[in-house]
């Protein structure tokens, strides 16, 4: 993430352009990038040189341009940041979509990941609060001031945990992230991601094992597999193989 910040504005734009082009076509060429960003081809070549030095892209002269793994992660971050900011300006502040898009382009480069994380948490909270949500935003759009709420909001709001559900949630905990099968009985964890076969993922979701959910490993079966966990106030058993697909952050 620090790398993303260290890039200059224009390099960020290039990276994002390559990312978007790569999603649309198989092979990205210098000409296409130039057209997309709206600059001449030599400028693109120069920028690509820098990006290549930083290990973000692979580029053969006159050949195809491709993002490296680091490049892709960085570009994804940029893309989400841009998107989230636009959404904030458009949906929460109620700006006209075109204006929101334009201003997001201008502001985005200055935002640190932490600021963005909080911004996203705010959006999430506004949309989730059972007392607020769409109605609240509508009222706000009319009056731009707080509307009085008849009920005990303090109790409600304090009870709502602001979930870490934002583009960086998965990455934030990565340093000490592990998988559920590695937690020993008595340990608690918070779900970061679900992997594995679609059928198992879907079942896990239905059973309430979703990112942000907290769980505790209760015990292993007498033969060492499956394991029993407690999640959302009830007990669930699953095989270690299935638990291995669940990334958790130990608490």
């Amino acid at each position, binding site marked *: 993430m620090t790398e993303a910040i260290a890039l200059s504005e224009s390099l960020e734009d290039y990276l994002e352009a390559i990312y978007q082009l790569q999603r649309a076509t198989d092979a990205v060429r210098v000409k296409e990038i130039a057209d997309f960003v709206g600059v001449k081809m030599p400028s693109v070549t120069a920028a690509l040189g820098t990006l290549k030095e930083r290990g973000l892209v692979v580029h053969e002269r006159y050949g195809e341009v491709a993002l490296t793994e680091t490049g892709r992660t960085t570009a994804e971050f940029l*893309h989400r940041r841009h998107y989230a900011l636009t959404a904030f300006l458009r949906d929460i502040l109620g700006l006209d979509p075109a204006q929101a898009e334009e201003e997001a382009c201008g502001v985005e480069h200055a935002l640190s990941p932490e600021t963005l994380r909080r911004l996203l948490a705010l959006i999430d909270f506004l949309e989730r609060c059972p007392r607020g949500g769409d109605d609240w935003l509508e009222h706000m759009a009319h009056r731009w001031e707080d509307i009085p709420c008849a009920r005990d909001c303090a109790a409600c709001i304090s009870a709502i945990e602001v979930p870490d559900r934002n583009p960086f949630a998965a990455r934030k905990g990565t340093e000490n992230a592990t998988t559920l099968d590695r937690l020993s009985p008595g340990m608690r964890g918070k779900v970061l991601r679900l992997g594995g076969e679609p059928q198992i993922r*879907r079942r896990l979701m239905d059973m309430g094992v979703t990112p942000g959910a907290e769980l505790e490993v209760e015990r292993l079966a*007498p*033969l060492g597999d499956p394991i029993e966990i407690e999640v959302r106030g*009830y007990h*669930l058993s*699953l095989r270690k193989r299935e638990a291995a697909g669940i990334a958790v952050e130990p608490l």
Partner: protein
Amino acid sequence: MTTEAAATTAPADIVVALAGNPNAGKTTVFNAITGAHQHVGNYPGVTVEKKEGGRRFDGVAIHVVDLPGTYSLTAYSLEEVVARNYVIEERPDVVIDVVDASNLERNLYLTTQFIELGVPVVVCLNMVDVAESRGRSIDTELLSELLGVPVVPAVASRAEGIEELLRVAVETAREGRVPQRQVRYGRELESHIVEIADLIVQAGGGTREVPARWMAIKLLEDDDEVRREVEEALEDGDNLLARVDRVRAHLESVIGDDAELALADRRYGFINGACAEAVSSSAETPVDWSERIDAVVTSRILGIPIFLLLMGGMFELVFRLGAPPMGWLETAFGWLGTYVSALLPDGPLQSLIVDGIIGGVGGVLVFVPQIMLLFLAISLLEDSGYMSRAAFVVDKLMHHIGLHGKSFIPMLIGFGCTVPAIMATRTLESRRDRLTTMLVTPLMSCGARLPVYVLLAGAFFAPQVAGKVIFSVYLLGVLLAIVMARVFRSTILRGPLTPFVMELPPYRMPTLKGTLLHMWERAWCYVKKAGTVILAASVIIWALLTYPQPPAGTDLAGEPEIAYTVAGRIGHILEPAIRPLGFDWKVGISLTAGLAAKEIVVSTLATTYSIGESEESGAPAVREALRQDPIFSPLVAYALMIFVLIYPPCIASMVVLWREAGSWKWLAFAVLYTIALAWLMSFIVYQGGRLLGFG
């Protein structure tokens, strides 16, 4: 009785669908509403069970359909598809969603999906007493407001709140009151839901029954059924789906998770919000008894011993306690046969009625005590919550052979009797697991095969080794079951392993009413669905063993009368095929007769050796006759025991397998594979033994 019974048959004023998570007490609510006025069938075209019942309430005839217990309404399992399709296609007037108040969060997940579907829903907040005992009190009025659907508290096991539930359900159905709120998925998801819903409407989709919004959400969840629906029914469906795929990819890139996960997360968010407001927990947490019991029952040291103890207890209950009533039934039918014989003149009619029909009915009913006791045991294990612990404890073992922990019970019961064992596969959720278990369960050597082993081992092996010989046959059955389960799971029943993501519900006291109803229902199910076919088959086998009879004075060249019958002729025809196994036509006749039931093998052998059937003198005489027969040797006897172990155990078990598997093709497959395997194994033993000089 008469007026209420009429309610089940008369056209209903209101159709209620009963939905809910497994373990939420749905069956208890169903029983509390309908009492004994219920019947069990299948949903058309699938083997998922459909229970229906009736009730007259306040002058309104209510017809209740019990939907399969599900956690969600995705196309994840057959049960979910059935529940969903019933609600969409049959359009019940109201859905009663039974929710476990002590496990509110996860239970409400299904509720959110009914809300999405836009059907009139009433939430039955069951087991509020349990929730309260755990220090949680629920403001039902507030919960109702936050969810946008009526919420009625109840304790179904004591029939509390059921009247109010029915009153609200009738009212909701009459007014056609649909949920007043929607789950909000947040701007990002919402904008795409709206976009796709618009496209669906433009393409001519979306009705009151199947709202476009619901379809859009399901498409974002990549729901196979809805995708197929769109592809087939909507114009330009392919384009629409292509658009959906792009949106999904886009969402994945901006959310960092796939759309399904984001949607599930939002639903839980909606529930969290509602629960945070409407549920208050007391500060002190009372003792969690389930937790304490589990600390012993599933512990590393005691888990397996307790499991074995309970399984042993169940086996004893079913087969030891079941034996006396079985004996009474046999005696009663024997007595009835003698009585009828005395009334009728000797001849074909007497034989048909006594041996064919009375014998056949007796052969059907004789299993009833065992089936009732088995389902008494299963019902106690399931309702108490131990069943899922049993699966938890042995899953690792069963997992190795490609099966689910719950497959253990049918396989264990198979050692007693294959008929209830196959019925016990109903506890398995996955169809593949169920079929695999059904196909290998007959290899567990049932009690009826034991007399054959005893006879043959007694005749050809020294008393000291006879027991070990019999044990080796049992062991071979288990090994073959393991091998075949693996073979089936990797060939005809190949598919992803069933996830073991399974709830371990809190321990509960089973209710007498629920247990008895369950027992009765299973026994009746067996008599009605399998009994008639078994009876017909028994009569056919009787005919084969009796006709045609040799005209008086025919020279039978020393062969017994039975050789002249169809079965006898089949025995002769079979001889070339079973010659490589060391068997002759007499064995052929016995094996043919043994298709009816394994006990018959012994009596048929007696008949073919022209020995009277009386049991006391019969067995030693047959043993002697077998020893005298030059074709028999210890090796042939062992090959025959193996053949008897593997080939179809009896007509009743095969009919039950056909009924439970839902297709005659599985019956045909089971019969053919067991016969082929029996032939192969006997061939290997006999020919191998001869090569090694045991001949």
